[in-house]
Structures are given as C-alpha cells and as structure tokens.
C-alpha cells in the first residue's frame, strides 16, 4: 500500500509533462514516454562522469526545453498550420518519432538494462518493520516538488495563466493581441523539460531499457485521462490511484499481470467517464 503511494506519486510526476502537452495543448504527444526514456539515458551518460542523477536531470532540463520548443515548432509548421487532417498525421508523426528515439537508443546503447550509481540507491529505510528503499523516497520527494511547482506555476504566474488561457479559448486569446503559438511553444518546452527530470527519476527508481517507453504510454496516458485533461491536482490523485491499484494487483495476482493494470484502467475510464475525475 505504502509502496503503491510512493510509486503513484512517481507516476504522477512522469505524467505532468504529458498533462500539459496533451491535456492543455491538445497535442497528441505519444512520443512523451520515449522522450522520458531518452532523458533517462542522458542521465545515465552524465552519471558515468560521476554526476548525481537528480542533478543531472535538472541540468538536462534546459536542453530538453529547447528540444521541446523545436519539436513543437516543427509540429506547428507542418501540421497545425496546414489545418486539415492534422489529427491523423500528427498522431502518425509522434508515433514514428517515438520509434525513432527507441531504435536510436537501441543502436547506441544496445538492448541491455542500464542503471545509475548514487548513495541513496540500494539502501533502504527501516520504518516499524517495513523496509522502504531510499530510491523510491527520493523519487517520491522530487515528484511531489515537481508537481507542486508546476501547479503553482500554472496558477500563479502570468505565463502559466496564459498557457491555461490558450487551452480554454485560443481565438479569444488571439483577439486579445497575444500570440498563442509562442505561448504553446513555451508550454511545450516546459512540458519536455519536466520530462527530462522525470526520466532522471525513472532511472533512479529502477533499471531502464529502450523499450520501456511502451509500457509508459499506458501509464502516462492512463494518469492524464483519469485526471481529467490538464488538471494538475487530478494528475497527482490519478497517479496515486494507479500506483495503489498496481501494487494491489501485484500482491494478489503476481508480477505478470501488472503491465495490464494501467491499460485496463485506461480502457475503463475511457468507457465510463472519458472526461476523467476533474474533467473540464
């Protein structure tokens, strides 16, 4: 149960980026988990030079921010601007992008699992008979901070509110004299930057392999849809729900059923309440 809560917060943190990109900006960003795994591998590379994974993750954020801006710029120029049929081709584009990243990682690093070294990895904290691995606690802490920071950013700052405004009514924003494309570009950059940090946590929590993004397509989209598109508090709650239900299934039925939990939950949510818990 406790394990579920810790993992749940971690799931929430890996999904906030997607929550912004897909939930607020309506970009069908299927490549989000692939970018996250890319972040993990960059962390691994820096880790080999003795960098702490979390520090490495933070150091990577500006780079990923630029990457995100570039991706959105490209997506906008080729699909959103042309308008017609953007849905089908955009989806295909991001799906292809995910595959390119995955195979690129396989070609560079091979299919083996990779992990990082840090003081808190491998040790655990004993608490009244339970043993909680430090790596989960660290990821939990960073996850909470990240989600809280993003929530505050979106609700308190000027740009944050602007991002929300784009999500609500783009034409109106255009009439106000603001440029929605620049705001979206900024937001997508932030979403991608957050993904770098999420990737760093991913490799802290456990070993990473290139095809890991496939499972996370289910987890992240499950969290975002369950949360209600673009709702940050919802994301946290949905992450917890997913984490706890995964750990329940894990103990009751065994590890081989665990991957289906996120996808099953996703299907159920889509079938019953597609607007999610905190739907707009």
């Amino acid at each position, binding site marked *: 149960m406790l394990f579920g809560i810790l993992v749940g917060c971690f799931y929430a943190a890996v999904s906030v980026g997607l929550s912004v990109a897909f939930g607020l900006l309506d970009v069908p960003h299927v490549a989000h988990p692939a970018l996250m795994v890319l972040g993990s591998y960059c962390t691994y590379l820096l880790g080999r030079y003795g960098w702490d994974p979390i520090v490495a993750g933070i150091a990577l954020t500006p780079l990923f921010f630029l990457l995100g801006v570039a991706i959105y710029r490209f997506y906008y120029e080729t699909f959103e601007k042309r308008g017609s049929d953007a849905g089908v081709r955009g989806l295909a584009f991001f799906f292809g992008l995910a595959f*390119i990243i995955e195979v690129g990682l396989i070609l560079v690093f091979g299919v083996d699992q990779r992990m990082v070294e840090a003081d808190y990895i491998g040790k655990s904290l004993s608490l009244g008979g339970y043993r909680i691995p430090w790596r989960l606690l660290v990821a939990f802490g960073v996850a909470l901070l990240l989600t809280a920071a993003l929530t505050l950013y979106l609700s308190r700052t000027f740009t944050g509110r602007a991002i929300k405004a784009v999500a609500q009514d783009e034409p109106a924003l255009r009439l106000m004299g603001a440029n929605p494309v620049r705001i979206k570009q900024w937001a997508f950059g932030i979403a991608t930057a957050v993904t770098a940090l999420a990737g760093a946590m991913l490799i802290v929590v456990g070993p990473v392999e290139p095809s890991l993004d496939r*499972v996370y397509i289910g987890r992240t989209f499950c969290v975002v*849809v369950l949360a209600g598109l673009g709702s940050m508090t919802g994301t946290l709650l949905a992450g917890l729900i997913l984490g706890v239900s995964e750990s329940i299934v894990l103990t009751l039925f065994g590890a081989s059923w665990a991957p289906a939990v996120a996808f099953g939950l996703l299907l159920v949510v889509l079938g019953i309440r597609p607007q999610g818990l905190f739907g707009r």
Partner: protein
Amino acid sequence: MKFWIGVAATVALAAGLALSGTNEYFFYAGYVVLQFVVLATAWNILGGYAGYVNFGTAAFFGIGAYTAVVLFKAVGAPLGVQILAAACASGLLGFGTGLLTLRLRGIFFSIATVAVIFIMHTAIVNWRYVGGATGVQLLRPPAMPLFDSYTRMLFVVMAVLAVAGVCIARYIEVSWIGRGLRAIRDSEEAAECSGVPTLKLKLFACTVSGALMGAAGAPLPMYMSFLEPASSFDLNYSVSALAMPMIGGTSHWLGPVIGAILLGSVQQIVTVTISNEINVLVVGVLLVVFVVAAPDGVLGLLRKLKWLHRSSR
C-alpha cells in the same frame, strides 16, 4: 473489369510461382510482404477512409494467431477453419474496442487500441494452455499434395487473403459505406447532421478491419511453427501497418498495397543485409518523412507528376 482481371492474374501468378522451382527463400520473404499487404489494407479501412488511427494492429494480429493456435491444439482444425475463426475472434475484438471508444475523439481511440495490445499480451502471457511467456511449439501438418513445401502453400494462402482483403477494401471504398466513412473523416458533426449513421459505420469499419488483421495473423503459427507473445503482439506490426498506407497513400485502395510492397520489400532486404533494429528505424524515418513531406503518399506524388505532365503539354 480491369480490376477483376488484375485479381485473377495476381492469384494465378502466386500459384504459378509456388508450383515452379523458384528459390524457397523467395516464398519465405514473400509471405511476410503479402502479410503486410493484408495488414496495411485492413488498417486503411478505418485509418485511411474514416481517419481513426489504429495503433492496435498487433493486438488483432496476435489474437488471430493465438486463435489459430488454440484451435489447432484443441481439435487439430485445418488452416481454412483457423483463418475463419481468427477473423471472427479479431472482428469481435474490433467491435468491442470500437463500442467502448469510438464515441470519443480520435486520439482516445488510438490510445485505447494501444491498451488493447498490452491487455491481450498480458492475458496470453498468463494463459498456460498456449505456452505462456515462453511460447508454444507446433508441428506442421503435411502440405497439400500439389505443393512442394508448406511455406509455398502458405504463400499462396496469404496471396489469396491479400487479394480478398483488397477486394473488400475496394468494395467498401466505392460503395456508400466508403462515402460515409470519408464524410466522417472530413467532418464528423457535419456527417452526423446530414444523416450518416456515423457510429454504425465506424463500428462496421473497425470490425471488418480487425477481422482482416486477425485473418492475416492466423497462418503465422504454422509459418513459424512456433509462437510466443512478445513477438506476436509486437508494436512493430502496428507501426508498419500504419506507415504503409501513409507512405502509399490513404485515399485509394491501391495506396496501402503500394506502401506494403515497397516498405515490406525494403524491410526484408534491410533485415537480411543489415539488422532488425535498422529495419524498424527505416520504418519510423520513412513514416515521419512521408507524413511531413508527402501527405498524400506515393499515390499523391504520382498524381501530381501526371498533372504536371499534362499541364506542360
């Protein structure tokens, strides 16, 4: 009329090749290309005509393959029965998935189909009867007397399936169903308002598309004489089935066929000469390049060329 002559010629050509003394490897590779023709055509019925992107090809394909395995293990059913049953099972799966998600916007349907892959995969991994995660070994029955080897027979079977798939897709395209689906792609609200039964049509397309994918998967266990969940529910099938129509052109039945033959052959060559990873990379890169630079695929490019040709005269 021209179409039906083409159909007859294709089947005759496949059978003739299989009976002649061509190298065995040709059939081994040709089977895979033809299989992709079926998958791409099936994908295009929903993805190309109606504009609903299906990422779940692997799920339908895998369920088809496993239906065949179950039937073969349980009652030793012949190949024809296996294919029919696989088509029914996958069609049902398509109907179910569609019922659950086709009311929603396109991307939710896409994500849901990814979910279907993983759920089916997990279910099969946990099903002992079909071998679980380690897979199941099968003994091929002897080939029909006319053919030298089983692979040759499967090649012809797949050719017939491909032709049947293309016929179905073409029928849907030229009939009122295709017109309805295209209306849905262009504007779902407008279609609904002008009396197109959108949900029914989408469900129909999803079912037919799923059934064809299942039929394509059914001969796989016999082809490999071995089946395991990780490779039969591989997302690579999904990305290929999506890339091929996109590369060939989605608006015409010929598009997926061109795409599948082009990309399928390239894949076979790359897999043999370089490596399997590069093969997936090629699919991904080509998909992105075509989606960005040539939204109407090879067919669109050809059409443009023709138009240029005419206008220069």
